[in-house]
């Protein structure tokens, strides 16, 4: 009986040494793992949305390869509603290599505005839940997760229309000029057109026109609409209806009273 017992002892000792050496070297390898994040970019996605791209550099100088590396980001509004969620998976990061992966996320502004139009007109904050996971030494799963806020700049911040300025056009019609201003606080350029309809206090459509705009990020915009309205129907008060059409989203009507 002594021989089998001794064999069990030798086998156990061998496995213990192997396990401890593996565990220590796997933990030590984590020290030589480097992550770098590039500049996040917002571009217009081909599928009509806003494409958020984050380049991630992973330098694995450890003793073992890393498998199933993934990045997951979830954007949610201040009310907690999920706006978008995307994952990027990298099957393997071989040892001694530098790998760059682009984590892309498409924000569908049409859906966002359906839930909350304030994303268009007021600056707010978005909650981002990000998690990075991997299999260290290909067998030890590890995950790091964090939550942080991200300032959302409204592309039509402080959108306002001036009071209609009327000048005589002919005996029956007036030329009406309405000024428009807003500031693009977003991290992307907005280009498109705004269609404006002018109604009197009885809700009768007086006139309509549209104007194009192309506003770079973080820039103000000042413009005006001109339309011809029947002199007999214009009233000192009423309301505007604005329709915004861009390559990213369509929105409207925005109802703004005047007078």
């Amino acid at each position, binding site marked *: 009986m002594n021989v089998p017992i001794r064999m069990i002892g030798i086998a*156990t000792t061998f496995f213990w040494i192997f396990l401890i050496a593996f565990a220590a070297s796997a933990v030590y390898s984590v020290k030589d793992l480097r992550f770098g994040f590039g500049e996040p970019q917002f571009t217009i996605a081909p599928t009509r949305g806003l494409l958020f791209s984050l380049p991630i550099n992973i330098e694995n100088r450890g003793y073992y390869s890393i498998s199933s590396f993934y990045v997951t980001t979830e954007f949610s509004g201040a009310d907690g509603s999920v706006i978008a969620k995307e994952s990027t998976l990298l099957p393997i990061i071989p040892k001694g290599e530098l790998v760059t992966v682009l984590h892309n996320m498409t924000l569908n502004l049409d859906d966002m505005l359906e839930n909350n139009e304030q994303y268009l007109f007021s600056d707010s904050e978005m909650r981002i839940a990000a998690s990075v996971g991997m299999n260290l030494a290909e067998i*030890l799963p590890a*995950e790091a997760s964090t939550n942080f806020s991200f300032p959302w700049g409204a592309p039509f911040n402080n959108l306002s229309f001036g009071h209609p300025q009327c000048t005589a056009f002919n005996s029956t019609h007036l030329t009406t000029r309405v000024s428009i201003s807003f500031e693009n606080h977003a991290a992307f350029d907005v280009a498109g057109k705004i269609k404006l309809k002018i109604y009197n206090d009885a809700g009768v459509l007086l006139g309509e026109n549209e104007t194009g705009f192309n506003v770079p990020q973080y820039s103000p915009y000042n413009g005006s609409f001109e339309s011809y309205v029947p002199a007999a129907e214009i009233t000192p008060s009423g309301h505007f209806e604005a329709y915004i059409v861009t390559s990213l989203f369509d929105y409207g009507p925005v109802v703004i009273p005047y007078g």
Partner: protein
Amino acid sequence: MAEEKTDSKKKIRNITFRVLKATIKAVIVYALYFFLMQFLAPVSEFVPGFQQLVETFVIVYIVLMVLGTLTSGTIFQYFFNTAQSLYVMLYLLLSLNGGTLSVGFENVSLMVDLRLFLMIVILLSLLGLAKSVLQAVNFLNERAEYGRI
């Protein structure tokens, strides 16, 4: 009289040998711990109390090992060896929170799944436990046989 003297000399030599063996074993385990801690030092920066956790484990492990060695040749050796295997299993099971370690610093939370590692450790400890039990059975068996002779 001369036989008694030889017996006591034998006993002293035996005890000295056991003490020496226990000391060498303890020094080797401590040296191994010291060496491995150099590798595990980065973990201590992220996991508060990690060093203390490992230190406590190593101290109790060494104490049980020394006691097992000092009592070698008696049935108590196998008690201590069994206790050592059980201790490794239970301590790792409890301190590693069942294999899922979660650590938080600032607003980042880190989770490491060590269930596979823990499973292997438990299997090896069970093997050690089985070995101790077999050794104890073998020891009692041999003693019974020699007693009969």
